[in-house]
């Protein structure tokens, strides 16, 4: 089932008359039978989009198509969707079996048939042996599977997952993401999931869309988006550890940071922002990019060098309360969703804040044996480096 979002817009009206545009003119085509990730920081409009696809929210403007069918006016229960909530939303007083069979009641399925169906789905997600337990007796990972089973039992045309991994601990996350991938492949259902965790999105999606402030930033296969970011936001949002950002300039066809020449770049002279992935540095004898190493972290075969540099741009946190959708005055729109209200959304920020001002990271081979206090010279791998317009943040391409 191919899903088309056409000029999709959602405006939240709050009591104080100020409007919040959560989703702004979204145009996306979600290919049939794929695992599709909606990725973005807290408040980017991704959950709002998901809830519009499932019909719990009405778009302010625009249309939603399932295949050729315009489902915009269709209520959620008739859209043929399965929805898995971030906190799973299992009915606590029902057993696993009752939970899974609950959606079948309204489609008048034969009791025996329903039971068989529920058992099949439960077996598929690997909880077939837990049918008589209550949700409280299950681990987080098992609850998640029950939620997926409940969403799948109606044989939906589309499966929607809201932050499917955020309530799981790190170990379960890895396991579950493989599991989701497997289930998606076995059922072949078009699956859309929402996440703020770029690692999660990159690791399981066939394709992702990066959203910021309700606007599409980039669409593509995860690796493609990572390797060729369209703009500074996408470059910064993807990758762990995050990309290093420098103030730089283009001068006479050369890229300059401070007074070091980084490489050739044929473009008009201008001030630019340069992003270099941590793995984009190489220790080289013949280079003018000379720095003093402050700290060294060695993990396995990689060594991370932490280096202070005056031209590093302080990394911004993606947690900006001002444009958080949960700041929408929800009392005014009582039954409306307050999207992304879960504070789990924020849990990637500590990683960012480890980086203090004016330092950058470089990952190099441990064999070099760099010590704190050493002076090293770097060259930069061209394909790990991205140059952006200082004003707009758009990618600056070298003249061909």
């Amino acid at each position, binding site marked *: 089932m191919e899903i088309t979002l056409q000029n999709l817009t959602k405006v939240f009206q709050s009591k104080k008359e100020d409007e919040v545009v959560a989703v702004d003119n979204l145009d996306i085509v979600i290919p049939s039978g794929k695992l599709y990730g909606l990725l973005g920081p807290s408040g980017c409009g991704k959950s709002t989009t998901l809830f519009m696809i499932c019909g719990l*929210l*009405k778009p302010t403007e625009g249309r939603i198509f399932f295949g050729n069918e315009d489902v915009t006016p269709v209520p959620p229960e008739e859209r043929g969707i399965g929805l898995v909530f971030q906190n799973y939303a299992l009915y606590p007083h029902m057993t696993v079996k009752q939970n899974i069979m609950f959606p079948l009641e309204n489609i008048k399925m034969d009791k025996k048939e329903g039971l068989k169906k529920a058992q099949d789905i439960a077996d598929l997600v690997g909880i077939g042996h837990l049918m008589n337990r209550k949700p409280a007796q299950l681990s987080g990972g098992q609850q998640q599977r029950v939620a997926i089973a409940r969403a799948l039992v109606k044989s939906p045309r589309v499966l929607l997952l809201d932050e499917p991994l955020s309530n799981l601990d790190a170990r379960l996350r890895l396991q579950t993401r493989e599991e989701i991938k497997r289930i998606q492949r076995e059922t072949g259902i078009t699956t859309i999931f929402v996440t703020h965790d770029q690692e999660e999105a990159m690791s399981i999606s066939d394709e992702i869309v990066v959203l910021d402030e309700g606007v599409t930033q980039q669409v593509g296969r995860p690796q493609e988006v990572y390797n060729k970011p369209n703009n500074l936001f996408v470059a910064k949002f993807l990758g762990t550890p995050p990309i290093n950002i420098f103030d730089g300039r283009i001068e006479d066809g050369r890229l300059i940071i401070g007074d070091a020449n980084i490489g050739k770049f044929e473009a008009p002279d201008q001030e630019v922002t340069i992003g270099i992935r941590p793995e984009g540095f190489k220790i080289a004898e013949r280079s003018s990019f000379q720095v003093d190493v402050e700290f060294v972290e060695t993990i396995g075969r990689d060594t991370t060098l932490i280096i202070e540099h005056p031209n590093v741009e302080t990394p911004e946190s993606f947690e900006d309360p001002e444009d958080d959708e949960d700041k929408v005055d929800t009392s005014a729109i009582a*039954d*409306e*969703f307050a999207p992304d209200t879960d504070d789990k959304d924020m849990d990637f920020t500590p990683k960012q804040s480890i980086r203090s001002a004016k330092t950058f990271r470089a990952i190099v081979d441990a064999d070099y044996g760099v010590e704190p206090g050493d002076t090293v010279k770097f060259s930069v791998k061209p394909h790990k480096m991205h140059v952006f317009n200082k004003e707009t943040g758009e990618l600056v391409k070298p003249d061909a």
Partner: protein
Amino acid sequence: MLEDRHNIKSWFYLAPALVLLGTFIFYPIFNAFFLVFLEDYNYLRGTFEGFTLTQNFRYVLTDPNFHLAMGNTMLIAFVSVPLSVVIALLISVWLNAVPIKRLQGFFQTIFFLPYVTNAIAIGMAFAFLFNQHYGLVNWFLGLFGISPINWVGLRAGWGTAMFSLLVYVTWLGLAFKIMVFLSGLQGIDKQYYEAARVDSASRSRIFRRITVPLLSPMIMYITVTSFIGAFKAYTEIIGMFGERLGPAGNDRAMITIVALVYDALDRSGTTGALSEAAAAALILFGVTLIFTFINMQVSKKRVHYG
């Protein structure tokens, strides 16, 4: 969908409750204010002479029983409530200190019993406890050489009868307060106590500086609601003294404001009776309001909301 207001549907859900509340709560409130301003209203005949601002209030206020009723009501409230709050607070702190859970549950059950008894039945038991000749109280006092006192018997005095009543009312009020305080205590973060112990604060200091302040919103709530409850004292008196509201031969010695309301209601067929009932009830409401207002003013300064 979700954004829509469900006006019609909502009122459908509310309708049963609202019809009942409208008939038995809202209408009576307005009607009480209406009745109280009618002059010589007779509800059997449906007649009244006109409207009056003060006649009915004046009638109640000059009722020879009014001062006694007001005095009794105030005395019951201002003695039994503070007493039972303090005792309940102490008992709940001690209960909370019991390390064995089963034992704590056992005591808890005992202390809760007064809550689940019938006020009339237990009031009768109290009356017999205070019996001059056959009661347990005088037997106990006799152990100390005190000769039997006529607490609640024939022509017993106001003082002894009131004392017995206060013991009963206090006893009856403990259970609810102990439960509420205990659940409040169990909700206090143990860290406060650990921190205090590390600072080697003494027991009484911990009680005064940690327990009471942290429990103060609950103490305040209980105190206010108990006062409001005590202003309405009536069933307890019926339980101990019967409809005569006092020791035999000293009838109506224990009369309260609420008793005045029901007295008037019992005469509902006579001219002016319902208006007097309304006036007495509104006076009670006024007392409650003033008291609650004062309490809220005090609590603003004193209560620590954690």
